[in-house]
């Protein structure tokens, strides 16, 4: 197993190099540079002179071909320096680090809620397959899956935050947060997170519930389930012990792949709820051609994707005794 992991990590490093090299090449070859926007924000009566532009280009290494720039970037990264934002001139690790906890709070909560709810709901759907109640729940889940979360967000805001005033409209904390008691702070954070978490969760909940149910329906057709029934195992035991464990493999694959999504955030929901997270940062960085920030985020997403895949492979061995990496 350890040899397998070591080999995967080695392959992962090469994959990382390839991904960052390609992404760096792509973004450097997109039309426009960070200076394109900077030119438009200077005084009305002037733009930066060629001399000023040259100095800026040299300072941010934009004067070098992209493949040379990449090696400079990589060299800095090897020394633990992700570079500095060009418009937001702080260090990239500070820019990303400042937003990461907020995104994790939304996506992490949403992910946990999704898994906590989708497994019992999936099992319940399987146990009650073809009943009226199950069909009703399935229909509702389909509708939720089809309903874009930004549309739901607007209506939830209008009804719950504006008309009923039950929850805050936007932001991650309220005014006077610093002066609140610990309990007050906790409630403040929770109350601000409810609506965005709800919007972020319901589509994936609908999807995963359907996913589990579909897998379970396939599994319960298997011969060993019939054997278990013949042996007189209880329906709950058949469903949970015999069928569910064998349906876990595809779920584990998805768990692995959702790891990068934990950090990716959601551009639209973060914008609607003024939740200053990674999703909105990524969007801004691309539109502003903030190369160092884009690369910092790509590096983070790539590492998480590779780790997620590795994790999924390792988890296979736990959930499926037939798989070994020896």
């Amino acid at each position: 197993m350890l040899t397998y992991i070591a080999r995967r990590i080695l392959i992962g490093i090469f994959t990382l190099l390839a991904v960052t090299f390609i992404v760096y090449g792509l973004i450097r070859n997109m039309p426009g540079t960070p200076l394109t926007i900077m030119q438009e924000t200077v005084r009305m009566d002037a733009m930066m002179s060629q001399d000023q532009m040259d100095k800026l280009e040299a300072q941010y290494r934009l004067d070098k071909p992209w493949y040379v720039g990449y090696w400079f970037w990589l060299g800095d990264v090897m020394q633990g320096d992700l570079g500095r934002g060009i418009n937001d001139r702080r260090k990239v690790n500070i820019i990303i680090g400042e937003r990461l906890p907020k995104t994790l709070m939304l996506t992490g909560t949403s992910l946990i809620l999704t898994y906590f709810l989708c497994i019992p709901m999936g099992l319940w759907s399987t146990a009650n397959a073809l009943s009226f109640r199950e069909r009703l729940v399935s229909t509702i889940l389909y509708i939720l899956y089809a309903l874009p979360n930004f549309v739901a967000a607007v209506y939830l805001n209008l009804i719950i935050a504006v008309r009923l005033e039950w929850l805050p409209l936007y932001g991650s904390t309220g005014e006077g947060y610093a002066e609140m008691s610990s309990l007050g702070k906790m409630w403040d954070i929770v109350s601000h997170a409810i609506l965005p978490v709800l919007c972020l969760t319901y589509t994936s909940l609908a999807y995963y519930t359907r996913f589990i149910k579909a897998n379970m329906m396939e599994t319960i057709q298997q011969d060993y389930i019939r054997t278990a029934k013949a042996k007189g195992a209880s329906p709950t035991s058949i469903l949970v012990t015999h069928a569910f464990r064998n349906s876990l493999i595809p779920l584990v694959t998805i768990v692995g792949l959702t790891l990068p999504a934990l950090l990716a955030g959601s551009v639209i929901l973060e914008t609607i709820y003024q939740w200053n997270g990674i999703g909105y940062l990524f969007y801004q960085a691309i539109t502003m051609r903030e190369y160092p920030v884009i690369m910092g985020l790509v590096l983070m997403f790539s590492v998480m994707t590779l780790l997620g895949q590795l994790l999924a492979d390792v988890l296979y061995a736990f959930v499926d005794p037939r798989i070994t990496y020896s």
Partner: protein
Amino acid sequence: MTNVRGALGTRYFLLLAILAPLAGCTGGSSEYSEEEIQAKIVEFDYEKGVQGFEPPSLEELEANNTWTDKPVIDLLDKLKKDLADYTPPMPPAEAVNLKSENDEQITEILESVKVLPKNEDEVDWEGTWVHHVAGDINSLNPLTMSSTSDFDVAALTGVGSITSDIDLNAVGNGTFIKTWQVNEDNTVHKFVIRDDLTWSDGEPITAYDWEFTFKLVKHPEMVAYMPAISSGMETVLYLKAYDERTFCIFHEKSTAVNEWKDEFPVIPKHIYYESIAMDPSMVDSDIHLELENKPVVGGPYEVLSRTRGKNVILQRREGFYMHDGKQVRDKPFFKNIRMEVITDTNTALLALSSGKIDEMEIPAPKWNTDANTPEFFAKNVRVKATEWTEYHITWNCESEFFKDAKVRRAMSYGIDYKELLDRVLDGLFEQANGPFHPSSWMSPKPPLPMFTYDLDKARKLLDEAGWVDSDADGIRDKMINGKKVPFHFTLMRGQTPTSEKVARVVVTSLNKLGIKVEERATEFTVLQQKAQDHTFDAMLGGWGSGTDPFYTKNIFGTDQTRNYGQYSNKKIDELYEEGMVELDREKRAKIYQEMAKIFYEDQPYTWLFYLSSLYGFNKDMRGYEFSARGPFHYSPGMESVWKVKPL
């Protein structure tokens, strides 16, 4: 399940391992010895950007120059005096209940709410103004500001010598300046600052702060960190502080816009002198990280707190209006101003409707929808005023389609303005016919006629220019270099709903002339790059008003940096030069009026309309009045806004 739990534990461990380096901080500057600091200052060399000019002594200046006084006005104080006997057309509390259904109502509202308090009891002195900003505040350091939100903060916290009044004239800022004089050839401007000014840390504001800041603005290493301030300052040679209150600015030559070059935000020398030499980026060291969140300021408000992506809270600064126990300036109307960042327009409108913010700019497509509901009117009033911001189609004059002015004129006759302005844009904007708004001093008198939708004229002009439908396929064509070229071009535009609507009308209108137009929504950065590279045929865009018509040189002057359409007219270039050196306002007006007539004939742009400032204000807000740049971006602007005390 045990195994799965174990795996999850590993997952979180791995997650934390990845995040750990991201959560770190640079740690800032370490302890430096005095010798190291002095060595850094010598190495940085504050004189680096101003070498080659030796300022004369004050005695020499006084002996060799005759000075003319320029206006120095405390514009809030002046407004108070101007409105002292003003009677609004209707009580403001009634005016704010109007629904802005027509221009008369809007005028009535604006004329009523611009009042200042008749007595102190009317004002909610303990109140908070929640001011909406649509983008995050990038920097609280006025030298590194780059967005409108940054400028809003700087307007309330900053120190400067020149400001613009509601008519966008340059005025010595009487809040900080005592006198402003210019020599006979307008190359030396002498300022004496007031003696009752203090920074928010209690230190006096002196002329040395101006000199220090100027040297930073000119310093070659600082250009990268503050391009917005440094650009355009090439012709300002030196700023010399002669004593604590007197400084002179030396300009390379006499121009009509020298006064605007005198204007830049000032930062305290005693705070930054050592720190910038140690950390020119102004964002790395501990002290700069601290100052970025809580800068030492000299304006009416100081920064109470800042949460990135959320808000900046300002608080009234007693040291601004009180000096040695005496009130020396007007007390700012608000205890706090909260600059609330809400990026999403729908959320911001909901926040306005529910009273969570006190005002916001309303996007045009929302004027007759979200800003026209009982929920909106329950707590708010909406107002509009014309801005001197024009919206146009830039024709690439080097493109084979638009080289000929006849073709460009044909385009201008080919747009269905009525359809565009009355139907598609709901009558919110007024038609434009040039870069200068008809009400501005530089616009021709009487105004030039508007272009009308006249397909016959347009067809005739296209025929004359050689664009005819030779093969009867419904598309005009022309032989260029022996090749038949169909009149088929791409109109590039941004991704806003307004530009989409405008582009559709342009496409439909020009199709009727036998011209095939493809509209292409383009990301802003790509659009700008294509504009700067001149790789487009036609493009939708707009220019906001500068304070002086000279600023348009950069847009229409031959080979100028913002001349995206590559328009070139020798006469225009000559007139720009004349306009720059002519100091008499009336004579200057004639120069720009002549230019406007040439633009009208040449049509380097097809001017479509002037944008309107569309705003929603909470019914308790008073004291706002619109300039050609909206309600805030002039003086007193934000400083005259106040809130009615709750009953």
